[in-house]
């Protein structure tokens, strides 16, 4: 009796795998990776955004043969990477303002086209505040015009750079400096906020995806796919913030993974406004497992109603994006 070899047992979910064909390994596993965001930056210990940015930009660099220009919104990523006189970037990079990165990127793309340099690709990036709140008008405009820009949002679910204030990506119940854990309904309100990936899809742009720092293979695949397409593209990456979430710096990846495995952060991709693929949950976890290690959500653990509401959100995502596929479907 011979069994079908379905998996590589070691390395399938790790960054690298010496057993995989080199072209199937992640960019991060290679010694040749760009390290677009290099050492010496001033991100906090265990920063998910620093990690996510290197993952994404390195993948984009490989996808375009290092012919890349990068536009950055104001925010943690910008501040910790470029305080005079030191820059951590190793790619052509510009920061203009908090809310205009998509428009600046549109201008860069237009200039490159006008100068006959369309082989040079453009990405823009920002945090959830810069992207989903203050920069959303510019982002929508960039989408609507279908400008040749890949926009990457690093979502850490609040304004971390200014001291952890609520953003439209702050999850319900979460404590921030402007949604304190006091009063009858502590933390952030329920039934508010917005989902930029779905809004991006409503623009029917060629490519939209959500990704997580906990699943590098998936993330790199999505960036690579996005880079193979022209026009406006959007990738939304979930990046835990140990400081803002009140979590251990060593648990950044673990929390990102739990966000995916609970269903609270569904991973999917959409082409021309239609979902074409959802990454199935491998081992479903209850939301309490995700909330527990985060001080910003500690009070929710004591509130059965709030806990049930958050579980219901996760369940809805699982249903809506069909995240519990059977083996055959996967």
């Amino acid at each position: 009796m011979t069994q079908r070899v379905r998996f590589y047992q070691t390395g399938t979910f790790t960054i690298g795998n010496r057993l995989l064909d080199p072209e199937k390994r992640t960019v991060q596993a290679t010694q040749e990776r760009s390290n677009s965001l290099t050492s010496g930056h001033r991100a906090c210990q265990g920063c998910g955004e620093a990690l996510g940015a290197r993952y994404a930009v390195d993948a984009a660099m490989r996808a375009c043969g290092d012919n890349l220009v990068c536009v950055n919104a104001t925010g943690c990523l910008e501040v910790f990477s470029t305080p005079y006189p030191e820059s951590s970037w190793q790619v052509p990079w510009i920061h203009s303002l908090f809310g205009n990165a998509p428009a600046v990127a549109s201008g860069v793309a237009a200039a490159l086209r006008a100068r006959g340099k369309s082989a040079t690709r453009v990405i823009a990036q920002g945090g959830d505040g810069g992207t989903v709140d203050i920069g959303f008008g510019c982002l929508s405009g960039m989408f609507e015009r279908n400008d040749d820009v890949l926009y990457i949002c690093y979502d850490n679910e609040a304004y971390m750079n200014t001291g952890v204030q609520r953003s439209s990506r702050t999850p319900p119940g979460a404590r921030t400096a402007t949604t304190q854990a006091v009063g009858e309904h502590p933390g952030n309100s329920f039934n508010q906020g917005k989902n930029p990936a779905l809004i991006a899809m409503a623009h029917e742009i060629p490519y939209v995806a959500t990704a997580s720092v906990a699943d590098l293979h998936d993330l790199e695949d999505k960036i690579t796919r996005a880079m193979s397409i022209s026009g406006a593209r959007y990738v939304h990456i979930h990046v835990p913030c140990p400081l803002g979430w009140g979590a251990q710096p060593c648990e950044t990846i673990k929390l990102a993974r739990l966000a995916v495995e609970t269903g609270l952060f569904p991973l999917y991709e959409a082409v021309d406004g239609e979902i074409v693929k959802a990454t199935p949950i491998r081992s479903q976890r209850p939301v309490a497992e995700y909330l527990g290690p985060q001080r910003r959500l500690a009070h929710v653990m004591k509130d059965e109603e709030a806990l049930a509401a958050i579980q219901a959100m996760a369940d809805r995502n699982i249903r809506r994006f069909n995240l519990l596929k059977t083996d055959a479907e996967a």
Partner: protein
Amino acid sequence: MLKQIEGSRAVAEAVALARPQVISAYPITPQTHIVEDLSAIVKRGGLGACEFVNVESEFAALSCVIGASAAGARAYTATASQGLLFMAEAVYNASGMGFPIVMTVGNRAIGAPINIWNDHSDSMSMADSGWIQLHAETNQEAVDLHIIAFRLAEQLSVPVMVCMDGFILTHAYERVDIHTQAQVDAYLPPFEPVQMLDPDEPVTMGAMVGPEAFMEVRYLSHHKQLQALEVIPQLVDEFRAQFGRSSGAMVAPYRTDNAQTVVVALGSVNGTIKDVVDDMRAQGACIGSVKIGAFRPFPLAQIREALAGASRVIVVEKDLALGLGGIVASNVRMALRGLPTPVYTIIAGLGGRPIPKASLHKAFDGAMRDEIEDPLFLDLDHKVIDRELARMKEKRRSGPIAENILREMGLVGHKLG
């Protein structure tokens, strides 16, 4: 080539002759005709690979040209009024980062109350943003200034705002000499950026600068403005040599010989002022005028020199620093500091209020007798003001001022009840 043409369309043609590579704009009255024509020129292929990006706001428009300039393209935008305020953050950003963007401002009042007509409140609000600010007196000058502006911006790596009065210039048809492409090409070399986003030579643009270097960065921006004081006259001379026309002077005196009274102003109102000067000279008055062509950098020395012989100065300006008075007048006083010359301020034409020769004549007469309020609000309806002030005194919650005034004046009273 001489054309009977609307000011906006003439400016559009001039901008096109400068061969911009990226144009991005958001429509706002009275800037619309400029960008409409440019969009048509681009669409027709008249500008080769030039990209015209229709954006969703002025903030995006200027941001887009910031990106384009950073990526090595000659970039242009135009706006006015609220639009300029909406892009304010990017205005400072463009100059702080030294991008040689050229932007036309079709000068217009700022609300509330919303008003689409001409005054200088908009460009004045951005006067200290680090942009060079040139003011056109005529449409011919507006056309010429745009050519000079690109050259100046790129030579100094600093953005330049060309201000032209909304409607008075933008929508006025008159004879304008439109340059040939060869002439412009000879004057304006292709854009060679000092810094650029380039994968072959990556740099980090837009660093965060702390207290240890911020003062120096600001000083260097100021220094660029001071450099412009030297560069602008050179470019104006070169322009005269190339095009045979004098345009763009930072300071242009008119009949100031032996003038005891000199009137100072920006923009198109200088035409009216010159007529009044002519009339008053004909009547024997020792009066002249000085047009300021560059509000930033402010040519302190040249103005002081131009006004050296005057025993009084009258500044006519289309703006108001609320709670202070005249903005231009304050600047002129700085040019004259240490001298006993009185500087009178006439606030005129706010929100498009006509500035008739007669009113100016009367005001200048008063000033020459040193019998003038300072500041003088030209043609202000004191009856309306007095009634409204009285009513406000009576009743604390007296309703919106603008509406009340209109009701008082019987203009919309029957509609508003």
